[in-house]
């Protein structure tokens, strides 16, 4: 996994003709996480979409540092939005193997991903019958099954119980200790385990 850092300067986002973010900037060296906080509509999700390259910038710059010479931005990062990208009709294991294939990883970590998400025992079941929490866990299992240095997580603990939320915290902590970075939009406190914390970026709602 290539070490990657992130530097954002004067980011201005406009969506649907409305200003969403004005002049956001931060720096994230390898091994650190950024928690994005703020009320609904303050632009947390839009910031992640912009970092993921899914929406265009009005102005400002996003710099990814490090990584290999040949790597393209899009294969450096995981974007985990509100929608889980889990398909009913495929089994739990098939869902994850599909993502391993399509995201350009080998399948060697698929079993590990399922085990980490606590879904190893039901890998053969149709993903359509999973509960909301299990679906979210399966989505998060992508992070384990396909190692990538940058995680962009939008409310990763939503639909999860307290135990599940702790698991997400441990998952992120492990990722950071391996040199990865994470940008996490959340309105709940995430427990990263002892001694581990995240930088914080608080967005306010602007009229």
């Amino acid at each position: 996994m290539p070490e990657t850092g992130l530097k954002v300067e004067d980011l201005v986002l406009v969506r649907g003709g409305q200003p969403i973010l004005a002049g956001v900037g931060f720096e994230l060296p390898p091994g650190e996480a950024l928690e994005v906080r703020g009320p609904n509509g303050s632009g947390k999700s839009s910031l992640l979409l912009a970092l993921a390259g899914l929406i265009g910038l009005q102005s400002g710059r996003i710099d990814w540092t490090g990584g290999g010479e040949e790597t393209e931005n899009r294969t450096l990062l995981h974007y985990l939005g509100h929608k889980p990208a889990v398909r009913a009709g495929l089994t739990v294991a098939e869902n994850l193997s599909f993502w391993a294939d399509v995201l350009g990883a080998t399948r060697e970590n698929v079993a590990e991903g399922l085990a980490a998400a606590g879904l190893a025992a039901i890998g053969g079941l149709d993903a359509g019958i999973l509960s909301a929490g299990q679906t979210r866990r399966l989505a998060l299992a992508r992070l384990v099954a396909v190692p990538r240095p940058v995680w962009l997580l939008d409310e990763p603990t939503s639909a999860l119980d307290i135990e599940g939320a702790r698991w997400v915290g441990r998952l992120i902590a492990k990722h950071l200790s391996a040199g990865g970075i994470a940008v996490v939009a959340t309105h709940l406190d995430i427990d990263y385990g002892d001694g581990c914390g995240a930088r914080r970026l608080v967005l306010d709602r602007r009229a």
Partner: protein
Amino acid sequence: MRAFLAIVGRDLRLGLRQGGDMLTLVLFFVIVATVLPFAIGPDRSLLARLAPAIVWVAALLAQLLSNERLFKSDFADGTLDVLRHGALPLEAVVAAKMLGHWILTGLPIIAATPILALMLGMDGTALGLAAFSLLLGTPALVAFGAVGAAVTVGLKRGGLVAPVLVLPLSLPVLIFGTGAMAPMVPGASGQAFLLLAALALAAVALIPFAAAAALRIAGE
């Protein structure tokens, strides 16, 4: 390539597991072609003359109806967002999805053509021409349908807009497809096959770029 095959394989697996959709599509194709003789009358020679038109209009309508599903569920459950960070550029993802969709919708229609040939009194040559013209033409129909499906993917009430957009654009496919089966002008059939093949190639090669552009806009 592995990622490309993974997308095609997944769509085929989903389509075959929910095999009902495929059967319904074939049923629709056959029913449309059966309803037209009721409107025309049971005159066998007239029906045989109209058979190319009937087969192609039925195929066009069936293809048109099935295209809506091309990107809709992948858009709704976030799969398209994740696919954009995959090993393939979005244009190749679109091409893979078009291929999977064609196998699931185009091939069954072609396979069902002999039933229509029997009912419409087509001879062996006419059946062969029909199947071959559909083989060349359905990929182009899928391609034009992909544009319509991509630009309406985020619409909740977009059901009718896509067909209205796609039908005029698909007109050349219909013209060359039925032209390929018209025996009255010497040489026209071969010419139509060449034009149909050229059109299908161009559409399949170029339209993934347009559809991918539309899907990027939809993702914002």
